[in-house]
């Protein structure tokens, strides 16, 4: 009897331990979600076993992912983990580099990995742009500086600054025209929780572009469409207590604009109508998709009130926020995202010759361009190499 009493605390601890673990275990099976809003990805739901998947171990692997993906209060646990790492001094969490603005707000950056092949790849890509310009078509390169190059002072101490290779490569003489916007004006030109530039940043780049090509830029102001945007960098390092970004759009007259988009396989006929600004994205996590609703292999933007100028764009997602500015200058803008283009190079060549563009714009984020392996073979095929 006496011994039992003496054992009471140990007994309670033992039972509590098992109870806590059981609660977690049962929680995994309750309230299943198939998507994580915070991380912006699909979650593994309870996998159904069959003989093959169990014998190959595939089911077990999925089941393990399921147990961590569906763990109760997963987002809260994740936030705790990330906060502890940050508090212990780590400034690189889940591939996001965590810095601070002069006002003390958190600003996140894409991780710059060491890549000895980067300079070589940049040179190859720029040579392919050069070759296209060599065929006689007017070619413009706009490499949006990476956020880390714009906000060097916001990077954590000693964090590597991106874009060195591309800046070095662009200093040489080229046949294409380089537009280098100065984006150091203020803190509102790039999102703090996403690697993209904002409509303001894109707007400044647009001015530089218009100036370089002798167009007269449209004056705009900005309208806020969302005040609660947490971008993809925040998805990877979901620190709590971070001020969300604001999503703005320029006040442009886009009433005559029609956008069709698709993978590009099957040419224009396979495209379907989309919106220049996708309202649905405002209810989703990745609100940058407000611009064009994401990336398409082939998109055609027509504006009946803008004359008959034709622009051909090779681009990444940075262009999605930029092209609305151009809709008043070109009647047709044909956009190719080489990463998602599903047509053949021959189809593309036919498309290109048929469009007979007045100008070709290559618009990428600088570090994205430095990592890209899709553009140079595509441009090579166009310039007949």
């Amino acid at each position, binding site marked *: 009897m006496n011994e039992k009493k*003496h*054992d*009471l*605390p*140990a*007994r309670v*601890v*033992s039972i*509590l*331990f*098992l109870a*806590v*673990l*059981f609660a*977690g*275990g049962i929680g*995994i099976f309750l309230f299943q979600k198939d998507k994580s809003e915070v991380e912006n990805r699909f979650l593994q739901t309870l996998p159904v076993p069959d003989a093959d998947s*169990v*014998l190959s*171990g595939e089911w*077990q692997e999925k*089941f*393990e992912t399921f*147990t*961590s993906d569906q*763990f109760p209060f*997963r987002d809260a*646990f*994740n936030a*705790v*983990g*990330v906060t*502890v*790492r940050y508090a*212990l*001094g*780590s*400034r*690189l969490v*889940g591939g996001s580099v965590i810095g601070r603005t002069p006002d003390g707000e958190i600003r996140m950056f894409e991780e710059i*990995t*060491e*890549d*000895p092949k980067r300079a070589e790849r940049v040179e190859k890509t720029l040579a392919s742009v050069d070759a296209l310009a060599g065929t006689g078509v007017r070619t413009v390169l706009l490499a949006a500086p990476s956020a880390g190059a714009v906000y060097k002072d916001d990077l*954590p*101490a*000693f*964090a*590597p600054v991106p874009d060195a290779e591309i800046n070095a490569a662009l200093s040489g003489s080229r046949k294409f025209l380089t537009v280098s916007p100065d984006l150091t004006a203020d803190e509102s030109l790039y999102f703090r929780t996403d690697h993209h530039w904002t409509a303001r940043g894109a707007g400044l780049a647009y001015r530089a572009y218009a100036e370089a090509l002798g167009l007269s830029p449209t004056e705009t102001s900005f309208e806020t469409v969302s005040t609660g945007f947490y971008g993809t960098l925040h998805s990877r390092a979901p620190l709590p207590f971070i001020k969300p970004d604001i999503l703005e759009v320029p006040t442009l007259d886009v009433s005559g604009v029609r956008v069709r988009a698709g993978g590009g396989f099957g040419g224009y006929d396979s495209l379907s109508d989309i919106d220049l600004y996708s309202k649905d994205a405002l209810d989703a996590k990745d609100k940058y998709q407000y611009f064009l609703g994401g990336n398409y292999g082939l998109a055609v933007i027509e504006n009946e009130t803008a004359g008959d100028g034709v622009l051909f764009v090779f681009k990444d997602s940075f262009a999605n926020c930029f092209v609305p500015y151009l809709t008043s200058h070109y009647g047709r803008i044909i956009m190719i995202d080489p990463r998602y283009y599903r047509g053949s190079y021959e189809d593309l060549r036919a498309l290109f010759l048929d469009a007979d563009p007045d100008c070709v714009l290559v618009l990428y984020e600088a570090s994205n361009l430095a990592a890209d392996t899709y553009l140079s073979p595509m441009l090579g095929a166009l310039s007949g190499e």
Partner: protein
Amino acid sequence: MVFSSTLFLFLFLPVAVTLHLILPGRCRNALLLAASLFFYAWGGVGYIIILIVITALDYAAGLILPRLHSGRGKKAFLAAVIACNIGTLAFFKLADLLLGTANSLFSADLPILGLALPIGISFYTFQALSYVIDVYRNKVSPQRSVINFFTFVTLFPQLIAGPIVRYTDIEHELSDRAVTPSAFASGVSRFAIGLGKKVLLANTMGEIFRTASSGELTTLLAWCASLAYMFQIYFDFSGYSDMAIGLGRMLGFRFPENFRYPYEADSITDFWRRWHITLSSWFREYLYIPLGGNRRGLLRQILNLLIVWACTGFWHGGAWNFLFWGLYFFLILMLEKLFLLRVLEKLPMFVRRIYSLLLVFFSWVLFAWEDTEGLFSMIRALFGVGVPLSSDRSVFVLLGAASLFIICAVFSTHIPAALWRRGEQRLGGEGAHVICRAAAAFSIIFLSTAFLVGGSYNPFLYFKF
């Protein structure tokens, strides 16, 4: 299945441990056996056959050996059983290494088998062998129950990463054990400590090692990477042992200790009394002493040590660097035995500690790099040959790691445990101690869960052991 996963922590563990608590004593081993086989088969159904065959062989050998008359026949039988055990182990570890080496030496074109090492084979083979040899030596009586013997070999807490539990360690508990609340609660604390070491410290260090050793090396990065690896391997391995010992207590077993603050060692001789204790004592008991130990003169002793350390090297992995790693320790231990220990004894303690730490540090460099190219570029970088001293990125990595390095360094010593004990002395009775320990344990489990569910870096180091 690994301990540091939500699957193990929140499904397997509570179910297995609770069933073990509520089932009547005679069903417990059957339950543990079933649970252990499930645990093992989870990662790959195929290799469980090897586990079962080896265990069955050693079970049968244990029954046959006492029936044989002492002498040559019995010795030959034992030799054959050992050959089967070690042969299987050596085949999986060394076949591809030898084929690959033959190919490159004689430019032959022998096909590489590409066999994955069955998880835990190095651990369970040694456990089962200790039993067979002890039966041969009449140190233990054979285990007649198939279930009990299979339970001993496959016991999931120590099946895949040790400690190497000898049959004599748990012989009694296999047939008769009680789980008292205080033993269970102490098991909870021990398990939590191990989980924290693995998930909070080792995994974080592993991430730093990975970041620091990728890309352009500098001297600073090389030291960061190697230091991170040194901490990773200690906290990973000792954390796993702690979890195994803690789980053992929850199930009524007392497993032997495996680590005793090895980075506090004051010589390499001392280090190997503190690092992976169950492995070094296994080799002493079943290889070094049977070879004659130190009883046949200095030359023979040196040869015996050479054999033991070559085996220790290959036990850790089927690649040449593990052999070199073993021979590196052989060399240092030889020197210490011949004269160095006497020299060291005259030096102040901190010099001895720095001496040991540096030698251990370089041993892990040798251990970490299986390819000679990676090894040489790391060694060159450590000594600043042909690489810059530092770079912005190096300082960035160091700044991100600095506080964690300090935490790891502190927790490599006995100081936190000593402070905890001192704090407990000021607290009232045993009950208060249990509650404080539980509070700490639950905090560690909470934080480890936070690190685990975020899907942060969680490697499994034992696939090569």
